[in-house]
């Protein structure tokens, strides 16, 4: 469709009401001094700035726990699939998080499609919001996954000095706004959008020091770089970085049987490659027993391997892993989080010799 129409929106309330008509709507709402994805109602005030919510919106498309199916014993077994028909809207999702959903689309799509993710995904309306400011830990400009979203939205909001610019990106988005009879935006509004987003870009100081296209080679060459050792030694293996990451998708499958022992459910549950048991098999053999192997796996999968697997990078620069990493050792004269991809890459740029004689603080602890 050609009409990437740009409209003028006075206030968010009428748009929220229009979206709420047909969608179970989630938005970034203030919670405990942070932002969190929560269900919104006409009185809610979703944040349209750079809402780096505590958790990304991935739990709405791939819930922390979800029933894959229920089963009943008797004459073998019978399986019943859950019904997922609800229409969902993500209201005010940031460009980086939309980009992370595009990566998840490739993981849960492919030759064998995960029907649970895809039914939700197909029923999801993306009402994105460009970031007119960028949070301190974010480095979306390094990947061009923010502060501006160029495509893959149904509706796109940009906050202006007076009201909002509302761009329509799909027939689904068109359906929502058709009834509102909004006035067309003027060239001035479009100009202001460009000015504001360029300012946000310019204000983003944090940068990945290696060009994205070069990361694959860079990390491959440094797979055995000594900088991995002190980094992973200080890691708690807690898994926060993976829980907070909008592109982390690993899960566990487990069964639960009700006390009657005649019915049960098979569930998937978020899991983390950082946890010791993640790659464990029978006999307690463990293919990633060492913490350094788990630490490297996460970092390199995000920055390089996911691109090889899916053509899209596994890092969108949102900065959540940086914020929620509990290990903030003082390194390199700066206070920084251990999970920070920018810091890890920066450390790996150092010549190996710099690490000679450095005491390993924790020794080799699994």
């Amino acid at each position, binding site marked *: 469709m050609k009409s990437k129409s740009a409209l003028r929106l006075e206030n968010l309330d009428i748009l929220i009401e229009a979206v709420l008509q047909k969608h179970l709507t989630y938005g970034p709402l203030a919670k405990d001094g942070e932002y969190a994805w929560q269900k919104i109602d006409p009185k809610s005030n979703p944040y349209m700035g750079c809402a780096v919510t505590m958790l990304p919106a991935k739990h709405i498309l791939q819930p922390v726990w979800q029933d894959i199916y229920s089963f009943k014993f008797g004459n073998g077994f019978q399986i019943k699939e859950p019904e997922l028909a609800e229409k969902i809207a993500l209201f005010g999702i940031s460009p980086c998080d939309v980009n992370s959903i595009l990566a998840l689309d490739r993981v849960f799509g492919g030759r*064998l499609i995960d029907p649970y993710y895809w039914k939700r995904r197909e029923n999801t309306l993306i009402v994105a919001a460009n970031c007119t400011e960028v949070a301190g830990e974010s480095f979306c400009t390094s990947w061009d996954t923010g502060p501006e979203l160029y495509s893959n939205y149904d509706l796109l909001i940009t906050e202006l000095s007076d009201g909002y610019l509302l761009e329509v990106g799909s027939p689904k988005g068109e359906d929502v706004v058709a009834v509102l009879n909004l006035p067309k935006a003027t060239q001035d509004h479009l100009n202001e959008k460009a000015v504001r987003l360029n300012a946000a870009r310019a204000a983003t100081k944090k940068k990945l020091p290696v060009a994205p296209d070069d990361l694959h080679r860079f990390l491959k060459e440094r797979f055995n770089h000594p900088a991995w050792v002190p980094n992973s030694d200080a890691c708690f293996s807690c898994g926060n970085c993976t829980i907070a990451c909008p592109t982390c998708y*690993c899960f566990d499958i487990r069964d639960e049987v009700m006390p009657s022992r005649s019915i049960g459910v098979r569930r998937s549950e978020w899991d983390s490659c950082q946890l010791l048991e993640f790659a464990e098999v029978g006999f307690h053999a463990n293919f990633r027993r060492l913490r350094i192997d788990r630490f490297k796996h996460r970092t390199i999968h995000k920055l390089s391997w996911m691109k090889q697997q899916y053509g899209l990078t596994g890092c969108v620069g949102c900065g959540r892993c940086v914020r929620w990493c509990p290990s903030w050792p003082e390194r390199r004269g700066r206070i920084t989080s251990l999970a920070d991809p920018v810091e890890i890459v920066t450390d790996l740029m150092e010549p190996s010799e710099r690490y000679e004689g450095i005491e390993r603080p924790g020794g080799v602890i699994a």
Partner: protein
Amino acid sequence: MKNPYIVEPAVITGIRQETAETKTYTLEFIEQKRGLEFIPGQFNMISLLGIGEGPFSITSSPLQRNKFEHTIRLVGSLTKALDRLSIGSTVGVRGPYGNGWPVDSVKNKDIVIVAGGVGLAPLRGLINLVAEQRDDFGEIEIMYGSRKPDNLIFTSEYGNWRAVPNMRLFLTVDEVPKGIEWPYEQGVVTNLLGFSRIDPSNAFAFMCGPEIMMRFIARSLIIRGFAEKNIFASLERRMECGMAKCGRCMIGPKYVCIDGPVFSYPEVKALPHNLLTAIS
């Protein structure tokens, strides 16, 4: 949209004890409309609903579709529960998954098969396929090692394999307990390669077993003149979905469940961690 997580009920129609802790199960789908079409080396996800699900290689010949077999070492929580089942019990099956051995590229070629312990399981379907379509393949040598004589699996079939023209079976064990008669070799499985009469220059080698064993086998094969691209290994990793969603079985950028479990030696060499290459 077909839901790939759904398991189909299959009945256990045969159980054969292979060793003290290994059994071969024969399964038949209750809905007989669909047999199981697969390539040797592929695996199924087998479920005991309420207990769990795991990947198990299909060990029967692909020519037999209405029933199929799995040879399982009963050591984990799922497999111990499987051990309590009997003929007539129902399990859930979905599959097949993975790539399997490159059967089409080895037509008319000589093949050396090297296996350790229960690692012979994913190769048995291939061996029986060769036996059934003898004219389609060259010479076959099976080099099989295990810890002790009573850890060998598929012992009841060795006679048949030896009777197949140009198929040779060599056995070795690490240890022979006192009082046990053992007319074959003793020592590591690498030693058996010395008996090979196959010309390595155009032959293939398929192996499965502990990674430490496969490292030494790979090195011996290369020294003997096998082309690296003709050496294939079946790898094991923890898997829960079988279709590259759950993320567990990754080795570097490869998913063992869809890119493997069979990898060529150059593919393994490109992976991190020097899996089958680091020998100091």
